[in-house]
């Protein structure tokens, strides 16, 4: 299947939903669901189709825009379609189909995500990042009832724009130095650019992606945005959006920055460690459950950045594996905490007493996800952290490894606070009892996904696939050869 269809399918959804609204208002809901299924299936088919390269307009890669499918792309396509499907179902239950423009934005961000993952052209990457970011600012600010959401969206907008600016400057410098935009060709010719230019290119791209992914010091928007947004949006932001920026970081780090250049990876290790420590320490102090989860996301981003900074195939494997684990667990956490906070009509952890008796299954799922994120041994979070530790040890990065391990203890500490609150006594009965069948089903599926991921190192094909992602990604020459063949 042609890779472009994975981008076009959600685009089509976004372009037709307004027409449905204008001409057949009753069909909007059906259309949203159908297009959701279609987009997810298309992405999965593209992922299943194996390696492919296609150039828009039938030109050569140098002239046109190339889309490339390789193992890293495949992994992230699967991640995105899982995350978007889960979030779409939760959103359909939470919002209904009245705010159809929300779904337009949703599908646009889906298309942009698939575009970022698939594209092999640096400027095209930037364009998709723009769609993705603009959609993200707006879904964070939705609905415009609460000023916190508007303010969070505004903060995100300012920071995101600065990040986009740095990305653009980096791309412009790369184009100025080489006259090329195709990533495979750039990987060949960029090292010949003057050293000073190269450092500016790399610096700008890295810093821009730091903001987009929420790495310190570009993380200031993240806690506000993730905690103020509506529950399905928070889940989407933490589960997928952050990962997409990290995908770009992985791709560019190993393709453009060159595995030979150690300075970049040192920067990644340094800032990853700072991010990890800061995220955990800030999460430790939160009273608001969604803010706690948001800072925990910051910490997990730091973990993945450290994994990238290990500059080895083991590191990339750990990064991708951890991205999947974090997607499954954090989406689940956000969905569950959204439901529980709605029951209590408060996001304050101290108010969360007695919820175990109220919704035992949701609370148990919360415990599972929290244990997974914290890295309690037999669960998936522990597995990926172990991969990461081994990669860091091989790289000789002792301090980041120690930070990861210390972070495990800290995160166990702060996740225990809401959990003990849930099991603790309640002063009053929860005021709300709205049933959440769809969210419950998604949470159950995500819990199942967590368990499957925990077994991934023991399942032959999955393990082989994960290792292949690392091997192929680190091997930039193979990518170049495939694109330029």
């Amino acid at each position, binding site marked *: 299947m042609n890779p472009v269809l994975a981008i076009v399918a959600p685009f089509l959804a*976004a*372009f037709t939903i307004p027409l449905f609204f*204008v001409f057949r208002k009753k069909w909007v809901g059906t259309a949203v669901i159908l297009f959701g299924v279609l987009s997810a299936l298309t992405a999965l088919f593209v992922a299943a189709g194996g390696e492919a390269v296609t150039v828009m307009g039938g030109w050569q890669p140098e002239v046109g825009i190339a889309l490339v499918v390789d193992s890293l792309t495949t992994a992230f396509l699967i991640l995105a379609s899982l995350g978007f499907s889960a979030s779409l179902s939760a959103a359909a239950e939470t919002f209904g189909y009245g705010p159809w423009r929300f779904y337009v934005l949703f599908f646009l961000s889906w298309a942009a995500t698939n575009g970022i993952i698939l594209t092999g052209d640096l400027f095209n990457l930037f364009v998709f990042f723009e769609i993705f970011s603009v959609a993200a600012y707006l879904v964070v600010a939705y609905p415009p009832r609460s000023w916190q959401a508007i303010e969070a969206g505004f903060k995100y907008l300012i920071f995101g724009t600065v990040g986009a600016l740095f990305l653009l400057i980096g791309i412009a410098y790369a184009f100025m130095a080489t006259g090329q935009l195709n990533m495979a060709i750039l990987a060949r010719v960029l090292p010949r650019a003057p050293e000073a230019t190269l450092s500016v290119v790399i610096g700008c791209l890295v810093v821009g992606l730091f903001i987009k992914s929420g790495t310190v010091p570009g993380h200031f928007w993240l806690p506000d945005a993730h905690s103020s947004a509506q529950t399905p949006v928070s889940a989407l932001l933490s589960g997928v959006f952050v990962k997409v920026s990290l995908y770009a970081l992985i791709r560019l780090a190993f393709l453009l920055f060159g595995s030979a250049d150690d300075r970049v990876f040192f920067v990644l290790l340094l800032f990853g460690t700072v991010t990890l420590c800061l995220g955990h320490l800030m999460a430790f102090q939160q009273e608001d459950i969604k803010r706690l989860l948001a800072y925990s996301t910051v910490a997990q981003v730091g973990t993945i950045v450290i994994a990238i900074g290990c500059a080895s195939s083991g590191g990339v494997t750990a990064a991708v594996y951890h991205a999947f684990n974090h997607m499954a667990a954090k989406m689940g956490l956000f969905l569950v905490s959204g439901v529980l906070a709605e029951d209590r009509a408060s996001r304050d952890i101290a108010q969360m007493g007695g919820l175990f008796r109220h919704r035992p299954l949701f609370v148990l799922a919360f415990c599972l996800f929290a244990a997974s994120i914290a890295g309690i041994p037999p669960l998936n979070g522990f597995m990926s952290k172990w991969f990461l530790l081994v990669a860091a040890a091989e790289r000789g990065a002792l301090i980041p490894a120690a930070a990861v391990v210390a972070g495990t203890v800290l995160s166990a500490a702060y996740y225990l606070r809401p959990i003990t609150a849930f099991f603790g006594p309640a002063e009053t009965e929860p005021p709300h009892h709205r049933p959440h069948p769809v969210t419950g089903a998604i949470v159950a599926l995500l819990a199942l996904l967590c368990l499957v991921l925990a077994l991934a190192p023991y399942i032959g094909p999955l393990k082989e696939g994960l290792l292949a992602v690392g091997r192929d990604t680190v091997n930039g020459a193979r990518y170049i050869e495939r694109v330029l063949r």
Partner: protein
Amino acid sequence: MRVHRNLQRLGALGLSLALGWWLWQGVTISPFQGITGPAARYIHGTARDTGAANVVAAILFDYRGFDTLGEASVIYTTVCGVALLFAKRRYRRSSHGLSFIVKRGMALLVPFILLYASSIIVMGHLSPGGGFQGGAVMATVTVLFCVIYGSSFEAARVSPKVKETIESSGALLFTAIGLIGLVTGGAFLTNSAAGFPRGMMGHLVSGGTIPLLNIAVGMKVGAGLSTLFYSMVKILEDPTESSPPEV
């Protein structure tokens, strides 16, 4: 306090200068060795490849047409989001306007502006201009309507639903052309290789899909920007205020 403020400014200045210096020392101005890389291909191959006279249009809508789809979608996203955030029913439309003379003058002007906009869109592949620019000019007409006649007149002439339809149809048209290319030419947005007529260079019918894509983008951008302004101006006419503020 004032000293504190000035210190902050000084710090900001220092940061900007340092950042600027870093960026400046990365600028490479290589001695001119002729055009290489894709740029050379664009300059020398446009006529042969696409049949369009305007190289920029050829790059925008053929070689890198996929980027253009993305860029147009950025505007689409923004418009959709602004409409989502400002979707409040309690704002009523204003029927206040400016004086009769201004209204008459505007009425005389509108056809010419529209004509100009259409020419920019349709001749995008022959001369500077294209869908983006023409669409934007088109949108200024509705902006002027809003300002001069009041937004209720504007909404009566071109209802928001019609704009919505135009915008989405433009986007769909773009995608459909791309898909036709995929079916007949093997790749998304294939131009002449997919059988679109290349035409005579310099004629109105030339450049294969480029004029069509220009029209699609024009629809998308024109209707989009006009929706954007209309959504925001609705806020302006909050019923709590007695008369519309002078803009």
